[in-house]
């Protein structure tokens, strides 16, 4: 690995420089409690927040947009024409991604690239630039037990906070090129910085409210598939609104819909994020629903998120805390998992 150091006062310049590599997106404060990755123009670099808790919308949306035209078609000719947008669009430079979200993206990759690549996702992802940043957990975070509190791949650059700046780890050829081109921004990494990094890690690990790892959780969950209380009690509160899955950095479900035009001939085939919390997710022709109740849909998410993701970590959940933070019904996913586990 290659390390350089960026002093705090150079952050702005660094962000401005990043604009040369594509459309820059970074976290900004959008309301009292919320942050979101938004497009950053030259005037907005000051608004970029470096110590946010979590963003409203997950980073996957930059590579797997909420709504995306897959094809335009001509129904008379029965022909479909690939939408080239994903291939021709500007690369996305995503600044300020937390470790858990980087793991989240790699989980997305495992389904969308590793095994028979989805061309749209891959095109966007391969040209995209990911710049990670270190963070400290709040009470919603449990990335540590998900083995997602630290990453050593999946980013181009990673900024780790030290006292007067950031130590940047370079994680890819693209990362090297960015550093090479902006060499004058950096200083050497010192022993003090290295000590700072360790101190930061120590501080961070002490802030987590859970410890160890939850690798065995999926077995516990399976054993509690018929838990007498928790599923019913919690799903009763659920609004079925899908906020948990939409904000989740690793949810991948999508629906495909054809939108015809008024000419009776052409139109678009679109994919839209779906959610297993919606009724139609498990519905098949003839009206049979494999997840007919709110409880069964509710449970499905817990099972999916805790299933084994052998390609990346140990589970599809990275412990970012979004599904609790953004649940209007105040359902505490982390707490529920703890309850099922019977301990932290």
């Amino acid at each position, binding site marked *: 690995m290659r390390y350089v150091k960026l002093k705090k006062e150079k952050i702005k310049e660094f962000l401005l420089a990043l604009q040369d590599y594509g459309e820059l997106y970074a976290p900004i404060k959008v309301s009292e409690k919320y942050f979101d990755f938004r497009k950053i123009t030259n005037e907005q670099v000051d608004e970029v927040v470096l110590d946010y808790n979590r963003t409203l919308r997950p980073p996957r949306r930059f590579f797997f947009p909420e709504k995306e035209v*897959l*094809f335009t*078609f*001509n*129904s008379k000719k*029965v*022909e*479909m024409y*690939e939408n080239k947008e994903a291939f021709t669009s500007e690369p996305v430079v995503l600044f300020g991604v937390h470790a858990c979200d980087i793991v989240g993206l790699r989980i997305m990759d495992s*389904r*969308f690239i590793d*095994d*028979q*690549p*989805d*061309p749209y996702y891959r095109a966007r992802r391969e040209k995209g630039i990911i710049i990670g940043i270190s963070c400290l957990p709040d009470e919603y975070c449990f990335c540590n037990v998900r083995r997602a509190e630290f990453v050593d791949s999946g980013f181009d650059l990673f900024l780790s906070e030290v006292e007067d700046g950031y130590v940047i780890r370079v994680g890819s050829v693209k990362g090297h090129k960015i550093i090479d081109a902006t060499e004058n921004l950096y200083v050497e990494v010192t022993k003090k910085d290295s000590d700072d990094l360790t101190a930061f890690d120590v501080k961070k690990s002490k802030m987590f409210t859970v410890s160890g790892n939850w690798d065995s*959780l*999926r*077995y516990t*969950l*399976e054993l509690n*598939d018929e838990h007498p209380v928790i599923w019913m009690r919690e799903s009763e509160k659920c609004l079925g609104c899908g906020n948990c899955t939409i904000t989740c950095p690793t*949810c*991948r*479900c*999508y*629906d*495909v*819909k*054809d939108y*015809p035009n008024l000419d009776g*001939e052409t*139109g678009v*085939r679109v*994919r839209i994020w*779906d959610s*297993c919390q919606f009724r*139609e*997710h*498990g*519905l*098949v*022709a*003839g009206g*049979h629903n*494999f997840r007919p109740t709110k409880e069964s849909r509710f449970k*499905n998410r*817990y*099972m*999916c998120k*805790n*299933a*084994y993701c052998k390609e990346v970590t140990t589970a599809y959940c990275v412990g970012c805390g979004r599904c609790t933070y953004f649940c209007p019904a105040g359902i505490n996913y982390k707490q529920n998992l703890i309850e099922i586990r019977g301990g932290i």
Partner: protein
Amino acid sequence: MTEELHRRYIPDGQDNLYDTHKCRVLRVYKQTEMDKVFLFRFIDQEVGKNWKFKPGQFVEVSLPGIGEVPISICSSAMRIGFFQLCIRKAGRVTTKIHELKPGDIVGIRGPYGNGFPMEKFFGRNLLLVAAGLGMAPLRSVFLYAIDNRWRFGDITIINSAKYENELLFARELEAMRDIAEAENIQIIQTVTREDSPNRLKGRASEHLDKVMIDPKNSTVALCGPPRMYKSMFEKLVEMNYDPRRIFVTLERRMKCGIGKCGHCNLGNSTSWKYACIDGPVFDYYDIISTPGMLE
């Protein structure tokens, strides 16, 4: 039929895995009031020549502007360049498919799914149990077995439906009766909801005792509505069929057919499966480790 087919989602000559190949409808046969059989041929002969599938696999049929649906291939895997689909009019897309006439074109991608591991069936007796639309994928298995008759022991097929006029491929099976006898193939057709002079009465499971093949050394393939599986499975085990040699095919909602869209997930956190890539054919070990599969 090699294992290599299983993971090859992108047919040759196509770089977008969601793109389709044009296929022309050659013939349309009415099966029942709700079901029609369509015979397709690839317009691009090259594609057609190289296009192979395994019994139990399915394709995504696409009508631009209406949508895409997964449909099991019901014809013999031995015929190159042609395939048949038996389609029930169930909703938006299938209704539109039912309006197709010979000469019309649809988009096809696939084949998808694991299909039946036919080579594991070789040298054994074969029991096929179909209920309703379940006959569609099992017909493919059945035709495969007939085409490769020497590789199998005795064969029994049970075809069931609610009413006589809903029995799929009933006439075809009927027409085969003579040959079947000569070939040691037993055909049982039964209806559950009415008395019919030509058919047996009752559910498929009620006629298992009539099956002539020896449970030992047999492979069973089940396909039908999920609710039939559980009792069927128990009964078969009771009758000494080897549970490890019972295969079922499952239906789930599917949008992509290739393990991306997430709709067909089933199971719980230790056995999280996608019906489209891990299935739709599942075996005993899947069944015991994946709750809800037989529901």
